[in-house]
């Protein structure tokens, strides 16, 4: 691997956005392929961040700095990737379910997913099933992510999945859930495709679901 890309990964891990922008430009000036810069420079940096977070060596604010750093680099590459017809990793629609106003967790997932290279469409909070369905039709995402913070609103996740089934769209998307009262057992019971116990895990889950689809 070229040292420019290694240093780019390091900049992402360190949360050094200024340096990551410089290194992306340098890599482009060297004639490197934008997809190569993304896959072998930016993404490995975020992968390492995920590993360190799971180990307890990095904390959420540090992960967010790294996500911002990745986004700064990705912003330069995005138009070039689009022009070449290259897809980003995937599209994720995120929403907090009906009756619930809590959105910080969802926002965290969105920031990190963007940092990981996803296109993120955030449809907000207090989202009834119909609006999730509209979002699937409009954006054709790979993944729907639902968030709830309240024990009393988490059941809306099950209702939303049923509604998506009834609309004949269930096989078009993977559905993941998360939030303080949610766990893997609940996710299985409501027939979601996965559960993220925190934002970085949710993004890891999105990556594995997107690459499988």
């Amino acid at each position: 691997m070229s040292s420019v890309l290694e240093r780019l990964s390091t900049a992402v891990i360190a949360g050094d956005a200024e340096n990551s922008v410089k290194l992306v430009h340098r890599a482009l000036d060297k004639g490197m392929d934008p997809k190569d810069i993304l896959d072998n420079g930016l993404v490995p940096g975020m992968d390492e961040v995920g590993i360190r977070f799971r180990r307890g060596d990095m904390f959420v604010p540090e992960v967010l700095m790294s996500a911002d750093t990745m986004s700064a680099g990705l912003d330069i590459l995005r138009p070039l990737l689009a022009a070449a017809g290259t897809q980003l990793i995937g599209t994720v629609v995120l929403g907090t379910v009906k009756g619930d106003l809590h959105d910080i967790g969802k926002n965290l997932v969105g920031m990190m997913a963007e940092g990981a290279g996803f296109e993120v469409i955030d449809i907000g909070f207090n989202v009834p099933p119909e609006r999730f369905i509209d979002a699937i039709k409009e954006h054709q995402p790979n993944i729907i992510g639902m968030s709830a913070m309240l024990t009393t609103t988490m059941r809306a996740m099950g209702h939303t999945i049923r509604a998506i089934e009834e609309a004949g769209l269930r096989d078009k998307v993977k559905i993941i859930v998360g939030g303080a009262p949610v766990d893997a057992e609940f996710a299985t019971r409501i027939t979601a495709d996965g559960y993220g116990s925190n934002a970085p895990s949710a993004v890891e889950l999105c990556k594995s679901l997107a690459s499988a689809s």
Partner: protein
Amino acid sequence: MAPAFSAAQTPLRCRRLNDTQCERLFAGILEILERTGVLLYEQTAIDLLKKAGASVVDGNRVRIPPRLVENALKTVPKEVTLYNRHGDPVMPVSGYKSFFGTGSDCLYVLDHRTGERRPAKLQDIKEGMTVADALDNVSFVMCMFMPWDIGERMIDRYAMATMLKTTTKPITYVTTDFSSVPDVLRMAELVVGGPRALEEKPIASCYVNVTTGLVHNEEALQKLLYLSGRGLPYAYVPSTQGGMTAPVTPIAAMALVLAGALTGLALSQINNPGSPFILPGWGGSMLDMRTTVMPYSDPDKRMLVADFAHWLGLPMFALAGASDAKTVDQQAGIEAALTLTTDIMVGGNIVHDMGYLDSGLTGSLAQLVICDETLGWLKHLVQPVEINDETLPLDLIDEIGPGGHYVDSEHTYAHFRERWYPSLFERDNYAGWEAAGAQTLGERAASRVQQILDTHQPEPLPDDVSQGIDAIIRQAEEHLSDAD
């Protein structure tokens, strides 16, 4: 009747914040309300505040001038009394008196029979209330569990019915939305003898969940307006997570909680001057930045809001006896003991969440009885110390002399039961402990729970009252299914 704990008369009462700090904090909170304001998602509340002089922009961004809070502090009662089923004033809440109770809505129960963590059912509420009814140091109840075997729109009514039927102690109910409040109150009215009886001697108070300090959801405001209108007691509790919905420093996170609480206070007194209002007694919570869990027993926030509530002179709804541990292990014991001790020392008033594990997601009856035992220990700690001729019998000491013994003296016979004796902790010698089964505290606690369930007979409601409560449930079920 469970007696109050009060550290007030002892040197043990302590503070973390001094008066100067409280003044500065208060000034900061008033600045947040006037300068940054709150988002209110209920039109009547917005209109009331606007009419009283608050500024409203963008429809629901409300900036509250300090005088609305200052006026409210003049009219709000400094005491609130909660009553049991028989109309006895068992919880005269004021000053530094502490009353302890359970928490609500745990999704899981750590089953004392099997050690299994499983989704909670309605039967778990019934068992939890039976145990709470039996324990001497539990003064009030909350429902403990959120039952998965009940349709979500009926949960609040079934929980209230079960609490009213199973214990005579005062009840703090939650309710997800506003629509179940009238029904749960009608049930309470049946028990105490009507709406006027409920208002004069409230057995039930509401715990109102507010989204965050500066974001007030519609249901919270609806409940505040309805309950303050009737003069019924409730705690208005915004939640903030330091590092997420508030700055990460405990003081800032608690300032936002209090800004939200004082918004509610101002509104309550505009709506009905002199109506009771219970402040939150904790705040300054954090988000754990490694696990993204909001811990219950972190030390940084301990005692701060309760201190400030005393400085304002208002009753508060506090939190202790809860643990982030996943089982009834050493961490659970330590965290319950530390939080109960600090709340007694700061004089937290209505202290809930005993028996909570897993940061509020799992409830444990074994943990609850351990909290009860711990409170017994603490009660003795904060007893006033008397030095008099009985406690320091100099004549007796001289009579018995340097080499004599006291074990068969009348004085010992008269006073030995005054020392604390554990009923759950053990202090046998090693051989005795082994012979009794070599049990851990967790094992003894589980046995104690089963013993209570096997032997404790809560006082039943009169048949007509019980049937009346059932009728309210039936009507609600019919009405809700018609609406589908």
